[in-house]
Each structure stands twice: as structure tokens, then as C-alpha cells.
């Protein structure tokens, strides 16, 4: 037992010492993300996007070089807090990105709160995440913002009775509450709302239950894997009720997996790979080169922006960036022109984002005016 402990301590020490042998003009940031486990597909995309952003930053002739330390959290709160302690211990790390899920982000945030380490999550959507302390930021629109926006959109289309389903996660909870509030405030009715567990294979009973409430339209809170399953089964059951969704479902993989069943789905996004703006096309080209021609979805774009926002904050805090200075620089982020639109942090460290309306037409996401 002792030998085992000593051995692992020694291994950890070696890893730590290797980290300190860096040149003085290198600034380190940490990135905790699920590189393995059930949500690895998202973490792997984040790392790819972060590496693109990092390579660009380091090639741009800035006064210092940046380095990102990636650590695999497996979307597990135990591992997330371990990583958080590890990052806090590393005096050279001035800011942290991640984690993917709100659960792990919030468990880690308890560590960052006490240590005074700025933390920027590209996806954490829990309403209380940014309330933990002044060190928690996110650059994704919350459902408190997106829900009412989508509610107004659907009501303007004449859908008064709307059914809502969402995955049983903190994010799904916020999808339903944000949207329901928006519908009520604008004179519509939510006729049905239910949660399903992530990774559910059979949605048919949920769909028939939902149809019994005779909704004019269905609003859904799911990611692309669940979304594709759901849409295929809606099609199989011959149901023609229009389906609306959130920006979380915005991924080319949704269309890839659902095929024809995705036709006519409406959703919002703050990232459009078809947008001709040069900085967006630049990211899309880089992403395609790194992933066999695949088009990036919303989440890699979020990660790409998160890394660039963090690096911009570090640059502002340079020379001698400290965690406190980086935090203050992050808080001052205003109209940061990213690929997911302009990002400004409000006083409570939430991103204010512009949303774009999109419809699936002919196997592609097409922006629509209304």
C-alpha cells in the first residue's frame, strides 16, 4: 500500500516538474473536458477546436506564447474536482476552460471559487453556475434567454398549444422552465411537458402520449443523438406536427443521423457555418481540414470562441498576468467578435448572444427570416 502510494506520488511529481520547465514568456491555461467516457465525442471536438484557436494565437506574433493543458474529466465530478485542484496547484495556470456538463463544471467551480481562478465554460447551462462566485463565466446563451425567444417565434407562427419535451438533465430542466415562462408571458399554452432520460432508444410511447394532448407544435430540448432518434420515430409514426428545437441540437450530425426525418425541423443557433463572414469561413475551413471535411456544429464553435475569449483576456492582462487580472479582463469582454456572434459578459458573467433562426431544408440548415 505504501509502495503504491509512493509510486503514484512520484509519478505525479515528475509530471508536475516537467510542467515547470517552461520559458518565461509562456502563459498556461487549463482545459478540463471529457476526452473519454460517455460524452467523449463533445470533449474531443472541444480539444480540436481549442487546438485550432491556440495554433492561430501562437502564429500571430503576440508578445507571449500560450499553452493549454488538457485534462480528461470523463464527465465525472470526482475527476473534475481532482483536475480543478491540479490546475489550482499549478501556479502558472492563470485561467481555466470547461467543463462540458454543468454538473462537473459546478463541482469544479467550488474549487475555483475558493482559489480565485477564473473559469469559462463553453457549454455549462445550469442557471446557478454563474452565481457560484465572481470567477464563473460562460459564453453560451442560457435557456432563460433562448426559451422566450423561441416561444415568441412559435407563437408568431400561430402555434398556441405547444407540447414540450426535454432530456432529464439540469439543462433540460432549464429548457422547459425558460420556454414555458416565455409561452405564458406571450399568451400561449403549454399543453404537455415531460422529461426523458438521455440515451433513450424508444420515444414512441412518449410521442403517442404527447400527441394525445393535440399540440399545434412540439418544442424539444435534446442534443443531436437523442434528437435524431426522436425525429426518426416521429416520422415512423406518421406524425406531421411541426418540431422546434434549441441551439443544442444544431449539429450536422443531427441531419446525418436523422436523414429525411430532420426535414422541416426549426431551431435557433448562434453559429452558421454557411455565413460568408471571413472569420467564420476561416474557422470552418480549418475545422474541415482537421476533421476530414466535416462541417463544425454549434459546440466546437462555442469552444473555439471560449478559447479565444480567454486568450484575449490573458493578452489584456499581459505582462505578468495573474488569475485576478485575467478574471477582471474576462469580465470586461465586450462585443468580442467570435464565430458564434458577438459576445459580451453582463455584470453577472452571462453571455449576451444573438440568435439566428434556422430550418432544415433539403438536408441542410438554412437560415430563415421568421
Amino acid at each position, binding site marked *: 500500500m505504501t509502495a*503504491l502510494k509512493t509510486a503514484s*506520488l512520484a509519478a505525479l511529481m515528475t509530471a508536475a516538474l516537467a510542467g515547470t520547465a517552461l520559458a518565461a514568456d509562456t502563459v498556461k491555461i487549463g482545459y478540463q473536458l471529457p476526452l473519454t467516457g460517455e460524452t467523449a465525442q463533445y470533449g474531443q471536438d472541444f480539444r480540436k477546436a481549442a487546438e485550432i484557436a491556440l495554433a492561430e494565437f501562437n502564429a500571430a506574433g503576440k508578445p507571449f506564447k500560450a499553452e493549454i493543458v488538457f485534462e480528461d474529466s470523463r464527465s465525472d*465530478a470526482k475527476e473534475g474536482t481532482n483536475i480543478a485542484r491540479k490546475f489550482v496547484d499549478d501556479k502558472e495556470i492563470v485561467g481555466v476552460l470547461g467543463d462540458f456538463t454543468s454538473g462537473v463544471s459546478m463541482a469544479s467551480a467550488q474549487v475555483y471559487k475558493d482559489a480565485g481562478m477564473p473559469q469559462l465554460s463553453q457549454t455549462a447551462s445550469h442557471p446557478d453556475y454563474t452565481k457560484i462566485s465572481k470567477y464563473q463565466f460562460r459564453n453560451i446563451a442560457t435557456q432563460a434567454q433562448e426559451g422566450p425567444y423561441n416561444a415568441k417565434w412559435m407563437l408568431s407562427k400561430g402555434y398556441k398549444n405547444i407540447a414540450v419535451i426535454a432530456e432529464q438533465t*439540469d439543462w433540460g430542466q432549464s429548457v422547459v422552465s425558460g420556454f414555458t415562462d416565455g409561452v405564458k408571458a406571450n399568451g400561449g399554452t403549454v399543453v404537455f411537458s415531460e422529461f426523458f432520460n438521455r440515451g433513450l432508444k424508444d420515444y414512441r410511447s412518449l410521442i403517442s402520449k404527447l400527441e394525445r394532448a393535440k399540440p399545434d407544435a412540439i418544442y424539444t430540448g435534446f442534443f443531436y443523438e437523442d434528437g435524431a432518434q426522436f425525429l426518426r420515430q416521429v416520422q415512423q409514426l406518421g406524425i406531421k406536427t411541426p418540431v422546434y428545437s434549441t441551439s443544442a441540437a444544431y449539429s450536422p450530425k443531427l441531419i446525418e443521423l436523422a436523414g429525411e426525418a430532420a426535414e422541416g425541423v426549426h431551431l435557433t443557433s448562434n453559429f452558421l457555418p454557411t455565413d460568408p463572414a471571413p472569420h467564420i469561413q476561416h474557422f470552418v475551413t480549418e475545422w474541415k481540414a482537421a476533421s476530414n471535411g466535416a462541417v463544425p456544429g454549434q459546440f466546437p464553435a462555442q469552444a473555439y470562441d471560449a478559447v479565444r475569449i480567454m486568450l484575449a483576456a490573458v493578452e489584456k492582462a499581459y505582462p505578468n498576468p495573474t488569475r485576478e487580472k485575467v478574471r477582471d479582463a474576462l469580465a470586461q469582454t465586450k462585443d468580442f467578435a467570435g464565430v458564434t456572434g458577438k459576445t459580451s459578459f453582463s455584470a453577472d458573467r452571462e453571455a449576451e448572444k444573438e440568435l439566428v433562426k434556422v430550418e432544415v431544408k433539403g438536408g441542410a440548415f438554412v437560415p430563415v427570416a421568421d
Partner: protein
Amino acid sequence: MNVSDLSAPRRGQGALIPLLLALLVFVGLPAVLAGFDRGYFYQIANLALIFILLSASMHLVTGVAGLLHLGHAAFYGVGAYTAALLSTKFGLGFTVTLPLSGLVAALIAFLVALPTMRLVSIYFAVATLAIGQMLYLVMLNWVEFTKGPNGIIVTKGLELFGFSLSGRLATYYTVATVVALCVLAIGRLSHSYYGNALRSIREDDQCADAMGVSTARLKLEAFTLSAFFAGVAGSLWAHMTGYISPGDFKFSESILILAMVVVGGLGSLPGAVIGALLLILLPEGLRAFGDFRNIMVGLVMFLSILLLPKGLLGEVSALQLARRQLGAAWRNTVKGEGIGWR
């Protein structure tokens, strides 16, 4: 095992290993941790201790009583949720929530175990799987009560009658003390007449029944006691991390704890401790290997089961160790021959 193999403990020797272990846990390790002064090492030490408790508590029911338990993490979760809810809703501190977490977990285990205690082998395993999933789904879906997937932020840290114990070293000592006391209790339970009775159920429950051992009652007790200790571990986790959500207590955690017990050695308490240390420290130690670390952990587990099917420290050697070195409860005849546990 031949009883005459077990030589009598000599007085001085009997206390040596427990003393060394206590010195290691309460002096040596804290000194090393304080020397490095890195929050990461403290965190891992605390996490390893919590999983030692979980693994040791599962050892009682799966290792000693031989009941395959697939829902242990749920009782860990019940403990954590009890602590979190009591401290957020009623403002109770760690001193109060710690025992209550254990008691609530034990109570729930007692209630759900009542109808399942006549089940044997695989049927019992499936029943515990169902119990684990039920409890997990309650944590996940009873949103009004448990806050569901939103989880709970626990603002109260570790404390003792109002004195904050949230410093690094204080946290370590608190966790270590609680875990050491619990493991000591589990040790006394498994190295005693009581433990032998549980072992008799594992070896042949019909025979044990015929010999007058109340198998259903003993199973119920072992199951309930093990849930109590898991609940205590849950309380430690809730107050230590400050945020819990149902994801921390899902089925894969039960399997992780089961793996600790099996890799360490079924029926062996030191084995359960070693198993927990291995499966917590190894994945952290292998971080430098990036995406390959899970494969390496899997490989180590596979090889250890392949080469040491009885575990890293099997039951026979563990019992010999317990009788020779921790011989406090082992009674000898005047001639110095061992006759059994007190």
C-alpha cells in the same frame, strides 16, 4: 483452513501493524501532504479515503456475506442527499448530518431489503440492481424534493460542533478519522463470530440455516450495516465537494466499488482497502498517458484478476494477517492454540 496453522499472537507483535497503519494515516501521510502542500494531493487522498470506506462497506455484504450487491452507490447517494438536504433546508452542520446520513441510508436499506432477503445468488443481485436504479431515479426525477438533475450546492463545509474544519489538513484529518473509525468497526464485524456467521451464509446458506444461523436476519443486518457506512461516505463527499448531483451515484459507481472489492480480494478487508487505493490512484497517476489511461487501468484490472483471481490480498491471507497481527479479538487456549473469535 487448518486452525493449528494459526499461531498465537504474541503481545507486542499484535499491536505492531495497527500502530504502524495508524502512524501512516495520521502522521506519515499528513506530513507528506503538508510537505508538498498541494491541494491536488489532498483531494486525491480524501477521495481515496472515501472510496476505501465505500469499498470496505461493500466488502461486508459482498465479500463476507457473499451477496452480490449491484446498487451500493445508491446508498452512498442517499447519504450524500441526506446531508445536502439537511444542511441546505434546515441549516444543519456536518456533525449532525454525518450520523443522520448513515442512519437514513440504513433505514432505507432496511426497508427495501425486507422483501428481498429470501432471494439468493443472481436473483438477489438483480434485486439490488433494481433497488439501486430506483433510488437513482428518485434522485434524478423527484425534482421538487431532490432538485433532480440540477443537483444541490452544499454551502456548509466540514465542521465539528461549529468549529470549521475546512482547511486542507483539517479536512484530511476529519475524513481520515471518520473513515478509520468506520473501517475499524467493519473490521471488528468481519473478524469475529459475527463475521464467521456471515461467511457460513456465503459458503452454504442451507447448511447455515440448518445449524441454527438465522440467515435472513443476518443478511438483512449486513445489508443495512453496509448501507449505513455507505451513507456516512456520502455525507463526507457532499460536505467535501460542495456540490452533488445524481450523476455521482449512478450504476457505474456501484460497479467501480464492486471492482475495488473484487480486485482487492473478495472477503478480505485489507484487500478492499488496497482495491480502492488502486482504482482511485491508478487513473490519476496515469493522467500523463492521456487517452490511453483508461485502457491501462482496464489492463491492470484484467491482469490482476487473471493472475490473482482471489484478489491482490486474498481472504485466506487477510484472515491470517488479521488473526496474527490484529489479534485483539482472537482467543487462545492456555496452551496457545487458537480456538476462535471472541
